[in-house]
C-alpha cells in the first residue's frame, strides 16, 4: 500500500444567493508521496478550495462529490470524529496568514503543543520538551524564549517558522501549505523556502504547496499543477513546466512575471457561477480555435506531462 493521495472526479461547489459557485470541476489526479507538489493559478482558480477539501475544512455551504482516497480510506466519507484523528496527525494544514493563524492571547508554546497533547495524550512536561525540541528543529536560536513568547513578539519570518513547527509537531505524512510567502520580503521569503526544504528532510513528509509565487514553486516543487477555474490545465514535473510551458495559460502566467515579459494576460478570470462552454480558458486564449468554444478537451499526455488543450490533441 502506498501513501499517495488519490483524487477521483472531485467536484466542489458552493450554494450562494447568487447561484451555485463551481469552484472545482472534475479533478482526477494523484499527489505522489515523498514529493512537493505545487498548485499554481490565479486567485479564484480553486487552489485553496481543492487543498482544503482534502481535510474537509470547507465552509458549511460547500458540496463535495467524488472521492479522495488515502490508504484505501475515502476521506470524504469519514465522520467528523474519525477525521479529527487524521487532521494534524496524518495530514496537517499550514494556513495562509501567519499573522492571523495564531491566537494572539496564547503563547507560541501553548499553541504548538496543543495538537500534540490532543492526539498523543501526553503530560504537560512531555509536551513542553517536545515543543522546545520542535522549535530547535526550525532553527530558533533561543527556543525556550520563543516558546514563552506571544505571536506579536516574533517577526514575520519567525512566525511562519513557528507555524510550520506547530503544524508538524506530530510528524504528519502529508502537509498542506497555503500561500506561505504571500506579502513577505525577499529575505524572509528565502527563509521560508528553506523551511520547506528542511521540512521535507526533518519530517520526511510529502507536501502540497498552494501558491501563486511562481519563483517559489519553480525552486522547491517536484511536480506542478496549473489550475484555472477549478480545472487542471497542465500537470507535470516543475522543471519542464517552467522551462517549456505547453498550455497557453501557463505561458501567460510565466510571461506575466516581472523578470520575464511583465505581459498581463488579457481579460479576467470567468465567473465561477456561469462558466464558459468548451475549454474554460477560451475567452482569454490567443490561440483559440472553433472547437475550443464548443467542447472541453481532455487531459492529454505530451512530452511526459499532461495538458488540457486542443492544440496538442
Amino acid at each position, binding site marked *: 500500500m502506498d501513501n499517495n493521495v488519490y483524487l477521483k472526479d472531485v467536484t466542489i461547489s458552493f450554494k450562494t444567493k447568487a447561484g451555485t459557485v463551481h469552484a472545482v470541476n472534475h479533478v482526477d489526479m494523484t499527489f505522489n508521496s515523498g514529493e512537493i507538489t505545487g498548485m499554481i493559478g490565479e486567485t479564484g482558480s480553486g487552489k485553496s478550495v481543492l487543498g482544503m477539501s482534502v481535510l474537509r475544512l470547507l465552509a458549511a455551504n460547500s458540496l463535495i462529490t467524488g472521492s479522495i482516497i488515502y490508504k484505501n480510506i475515502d476521506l470524504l466519507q469519514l465522520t467528523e470524529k474519525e477525521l479529527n484523528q487524521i487532521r494534524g496527525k496524518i495530514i496537517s494544514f499550514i494556513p495562509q496568514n501567519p499573522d492571523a493563524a495564531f491566537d494572539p492571547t496564547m503563547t507560541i508554546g501553548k499553541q504548538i503543543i496543543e495538537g500534540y497533547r490532543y492526539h498523543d495524550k501526553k503530560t504537560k512536561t512531555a509536551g513542553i520538551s517536545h515543543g522546545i525540541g520542535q522549535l530547535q528543529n526550525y532553527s530558533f536560536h533561543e527556543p525556550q524564549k520563543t516558546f514563552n513568547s506571544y505571536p506579536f513578539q516574533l517577526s514575520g519570518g519567525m512566525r511562519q517558522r513557528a507555524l510550520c513547527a506547530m503544524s508538524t509537531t506530530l510528524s504528519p505524512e502529508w502537509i498542506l501549505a497555503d500561500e506561505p510567502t504571500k506579502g513577505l520580503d*525577499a529575505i524572509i521569503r528565502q527563509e521560508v523556502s528553506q523551511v520547506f526544504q528542511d521540512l521535507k528532510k526533518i519530517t520526511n513528509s510529502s507536501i502540497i504547496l498552494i501558491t501563486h509565487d511562481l519563483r*517559489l514553486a519553480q525552486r522547491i516543487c517536484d511536480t506542478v499543477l496549473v489550475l484555472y477555474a477549478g480545472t487542471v490545465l497542465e500537470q507535470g514535473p516543475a522543471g519542464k513546466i517552467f522551462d517549456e510551458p505547453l498550455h497557453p495559460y501557463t505561458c501567460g502566467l510565466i510571461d*506575466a512575471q516581472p523578470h520575464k515579459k511583465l505581459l498581463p494576460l488579457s481579460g479576467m478570470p470567468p465567473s465561477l457561477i456561469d462558466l464558459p462552454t468548451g475549454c474554460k480558458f477560451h475567452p482569454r486564449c490567443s490561440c483559440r480555435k472553433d472547437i475550443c468554444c464548443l467542447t472541453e478537451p481532455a487531459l492529454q499526455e505530451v512530452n511526459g506531462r499532461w495538458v488540457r488543450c486542443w492544440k496538442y490533441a
Partner: protein
Amino acid sequence: MLNVSNISKEFKSGLFGRTHTLAVNNVSFSIKAGQTLGLVGMSGSGKSTLGRLALKLIPCDTGRIIFNGIEISHYTMKQMKKLRKEMQILFQNPESSLNPRMTIGKSLEEPYRFHDIGDKEYLDEQIEEQLQFVGLGTELLNRRPYQLSGGQLQRVCIARLLLLRPKLLVLDEPTSMLDVSVQAQVIEVLKNAQKKQGISYLFISHDLDVIKACSDEIAVMYKGRIIEQQTAEDLYKQPKEEYTKQLLDTFLNF
C-alpha cells in the same frame, strides 16, 4: 519635482515614550518630473515612513522638503490642503483603502468634491474617461468594494487618484497583495498613466523584479538610511554597497 534633504523621523512608544525608534535617519533624495524613483529595502527599513514623510502625511523632525519649487516642510495641514491633490499616495491593500459602505461611484467622487475641482457633469465625464483608462467599465459604479476583485479595486484606486491630476504619487507596495497576472495589469496601467499625465512616482517595494521593471533610478534603504542610489541599470550591474549585493543575490538567485 520633489527634493528632500536631510529628513529624520523618530517614533516614541512605550510607557512615557521611553522606547525611541529612529525610523528615518538623515535621508536626502530627489525625483525629477515624469520619472520614477524606486525605493527598496526589507520590512521595517523605513521605506513606508519615508514615503509618508515626503507627502507630509506625518510631520518630520528635521529636514527640508521642496515640492515643485515651494518649500513645504513648515506647512500646516491647512496649507497642505491646496497642494494635497497634487501629491497623493496609493496603498498596498486596495481592500482596506476603500470605504466598504460606499459604492465605487461615491468613492471615486469623494476626493474630487473635497478639492472642489469641477461640476457634476464634468466629473461624470472624467470618471468615465479614467475608468476606461484603467480598463474598467462604468457598470462598476453602483457596486460596493466587496463585489470586486483585488486587481479591480486597485485599478479603482488608481482611477480615483488620476481624477485629481496629481504631479507626484507615492506607490506603497501597490502590487504585493496581487497575483502575477494582475500585477502585470496594474503596472501597465501605472506606466501608461505616467506617460499620459507626466506624473512622478516614488515606487516603494521589496520586490526587486518589480522595481527593476518600473524605475528610472533606485534607492536602497537599510535601517532608516538610503545607503545607495543609482540608475536602475547600474544598480543591477554594479552595486556599490555590500548590503545591496547581498540583497540582489538573495533575490535574483531565488
